[in-house]
């Protein structure tokens, strides 16, 4: 495959490539690449929590416990960042990020965070049915959407509603308010134990008959998921989300219809769907090249992969995520993060343009982020003042080694630059290669993939 296609392909189903990777990956098909990838779970060391009985702790000890737990969530976040930056399984990693975007679950318990991310990891390119069930049964989701509080006598519709609206069918699409109420009954009793294992509490479960989408039966939660998946509208909704995330923020209905058929007929096989996208000619159409604005994570991970950026402290990663409004495990609400143009406003644009040069020249970043509201609304009082060097390490030698012989405009912009930028660059004198690189990645074009 030609460079232009390879770069585009892995901009979307990865975090961008360097010249060596372009060379390597142009030799094999996407299908083969995906086949060769493995699932990498995330694991944390919880030994320091062993033997602790939360119920027996004093107020002060509980606060300490929570503080420690918060730090573990941070560790998990950074572990994930580092994995996205270093992993060879870039398609898997991108899919993991997409599914966290789709299942925008706010997680404060590190144990449940590990369980949640691995539920996604193990199913990210497999069956959407299995993925949906695994996420629905995860302790993080059960806590987040109050499935725990969903009891036969007092149903809580939170999960039922979001299952339809956000995860499968789309708002008011082929379901009614009545369906939501009935669906909630099917998930009564769904619960998890302290360490996160799923169980159904028979005393809270509603064994009665339910009528969903006009069908009556003694449905349970998994039955509901099958009833939903039977609707082609569900395949279409997922395809639309995948399309706007991986192809173009503007929907092309003919393409969606094509994908919906593929996805639905393959019984929701995610791998089949994404392989189909990458094999479609329209995926590589000029209108799709550089048509997307990077999310903050895509921006940070792409930059870091290119320059081998690392940090031995977790905080700078968190500061950057918060600065750009995308913190892993912490979407703003159940509807999830911003998309595309929403990321860019007067506040973020200048910071986005400056961050690459700040990191790569180790400049000072004088910034104070807003308090982390859930965890510690008072923290802005003293902490979080970040008027110092971020302390990232980077490797220019690595960058130049990996990118020998490639035109940097091709590398960063897939050769798609507007006439004004082409003119602008033509007249520029660069004192060094490094200067050229920094100037290129400080252009607005670098925000696009």
């Amino acid at each position, binding site marked *: 495959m030609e460079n232009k296609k390879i770069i585009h392909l892995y901009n979307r189903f990865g975090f961008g490539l360097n010249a060596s990777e372009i060379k390597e990956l142009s030799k094999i098909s996407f299908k083969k690449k995906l086949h060769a990838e493995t699932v990498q779970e995330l694991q944390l060391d919880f030994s320091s929590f062993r033997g602790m009985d939360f119920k027996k702790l004093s*107020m002060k000890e509980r606060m300490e416990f929570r503080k420690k737990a918060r730090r573990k969530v941070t560790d998990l976040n950074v572990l994930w960042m580092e994995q996205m930056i270093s992993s060879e399984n870039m398609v898997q990693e991108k899919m993991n990020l997409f599914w966290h975007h789709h299942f925008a679950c706010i997680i404060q318990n590190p144990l449940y965070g590990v369980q949640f991310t691995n539920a996604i990891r193990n199913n990210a390119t497999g069956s959407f049915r299995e993925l949906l069930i695994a996420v629905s049964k995860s302790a993080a989701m059960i806590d987040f959407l109050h499935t725990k509080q969903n009891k036969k006598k007092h149903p809580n519709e939170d999960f039922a509603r979001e299952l339809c609206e956000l995860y499968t069918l789309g708002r008011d699409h082929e379901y009614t308010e009545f369906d939501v109420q009935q669906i909630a009954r099917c998930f009564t009793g769904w619960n998890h134990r302290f360490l996160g294992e799923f169980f159904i509490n028979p005393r809270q479960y509603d064994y009665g008959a339910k009528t969903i989408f006009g069908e009556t039966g003694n449905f349970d939660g998994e039955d509901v998921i099958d009833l939903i998946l039977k609707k082609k509208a569900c395949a279409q909704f997922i395809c639309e989300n995948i399309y706007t995330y991986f192809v173009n923020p503007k929907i092309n209905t003919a393409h969606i219809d094509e994908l919906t058929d593929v996805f639905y007929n393959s019984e929701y096989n995610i791998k089949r769907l994404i392989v189909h996208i990458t094999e479609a000619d329209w995926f590589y159409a000029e209108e799709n090249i*550089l048509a997307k604005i990077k999310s903050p994570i895509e921006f940070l991970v792409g930059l870091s992969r290119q320059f081998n950026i690392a940090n031995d402290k977790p905080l700078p990663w968190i500061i950057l995520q918060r600065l750009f409004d995308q913190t892993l495990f912490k979407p703003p609400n159940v509807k999830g993060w911003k998309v595309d*143009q929403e990321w860019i406003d*007067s506040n973020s*644009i*200048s910071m986005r*343009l400056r961050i690459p040069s700040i990191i790569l020249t180790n400049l000072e970043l004088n910034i104070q982020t807003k308090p982390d509201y859930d965890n510690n*609304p008072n923290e802005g*009082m003293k902490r979080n003042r970040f008027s110092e060097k971020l302390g990232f390490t980077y490797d220019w030698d690595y960058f130049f080694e990996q990118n020998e012989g490639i035109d940097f405009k091709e590398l960063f912009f897939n050769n798609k630059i507007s006439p004004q930028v082409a003119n602008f660059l033509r007249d520029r004198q660069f004192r060094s290669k490094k200067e050229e690189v920094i100037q290129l990645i400080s252009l607005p074009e670098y925000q696009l993939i």
Partner: protein
Amino acid sequence: MKRSEFIRNTTLGAIGTVFIPEFLRGMDLVGLNGNSSFKKLVVIQLSGGNDGLNTIVPIENDIYYNLRPKIGISKRDTIKVNDTLGFNPVLEKFNTLYQDGLVSIINSVGYPNPNRSHFRSMDIWHTAVDSNKHSKTGWLGRFMDAYCGNSHSMLEIDNQLSLSLHGQIRNGLAIQNSDTLYKSLRAPYFRQVIETAQSADLNEDNQGYLYKTLIQTNQSAKYLAETHNVKNNRVDFPKSRLGRKLGKVSQFIQSGFNTQVYYVSHNGFDSHVNQRNLQDRLLKDYSDSIYAFVESLKKAGELENTLILTFSEFGRRVKENGSSGTDHGKANTLFLIGNNLKTPGIYNEAPDLLQLDDGDVSYKIDFRNVYHDIITEWFEKDARKIISKRFDSLGIV
């Protein structure tokens, strides 16, 4: 395009509009012509949940003293407001403003089905949608979409922008200083990038969008840096963070910025532990800073056109906890400050501690009613585009 057309094109009806026609125009869109006699709103957010009951103390209420044996403020320590209420003693200067008829105190402000999470409750106050709904735009952002032409119509004195100031078409601007943003864009390199783009025919795709946003940001940044000509206040502000922020807002107003809303946060009110120390320190800072702010506006002849709203995302539980603090509660007290208030003083009766909502003050006035009145009666604009619920006037502004 005519102004009326612009307004029609930029209301919420135009959700999803990619192209913003006035993007590349000059900054004269609001038609303020350097005249500063337009109405301004200054919002002060007490983040973390300020305890309203220890701000304005119900000095004759036994329930209050019974439930707060440790942190209750005794009657003789308070500053008398009336027969039943007294200010926290640190609010000495705030009391001066109050005695001068510049303050309205509105009790039991909240919303139905309250949420005790900081994050959610703050979101609800920012977006002004029902507590079971979510929105990506804030009430002030929607106001800006409908009635203002540029990002610096709304300034937050901060590094990051609050959800309140997020609109569908544009967002407000978060700045620490009037010139840092401009300086960063004045680096020779960015200046050249911007100049090149300004002379170019920008397309309507995302690439064009990025350049347009950059140009617009530069215009706002330039405007602020060049218009900021009042660099000293005639009044001394406290050296605290809040004092410095309000000192800046005062300079900006005096410089004649065509900014309609200023937004400032005062952080740290989450008083679960040793509340008295923490809250008293923050309230004193608030009281001293707001006093300096009002004095400086008065001297500059700007108080007439300025309304100050102070709120917190929720109040705190009536009963103190085991750590001499209080946990998250529900309805709270809200302040309006200005010299055009319709009902200065205590607007409505103090919270009824006999009728608690699960141990919390229950809400009597929907906060959106206050927003509604600010939009319709202070700014004299139609609130339908901004707040979906209908309200009658409270008769406050």
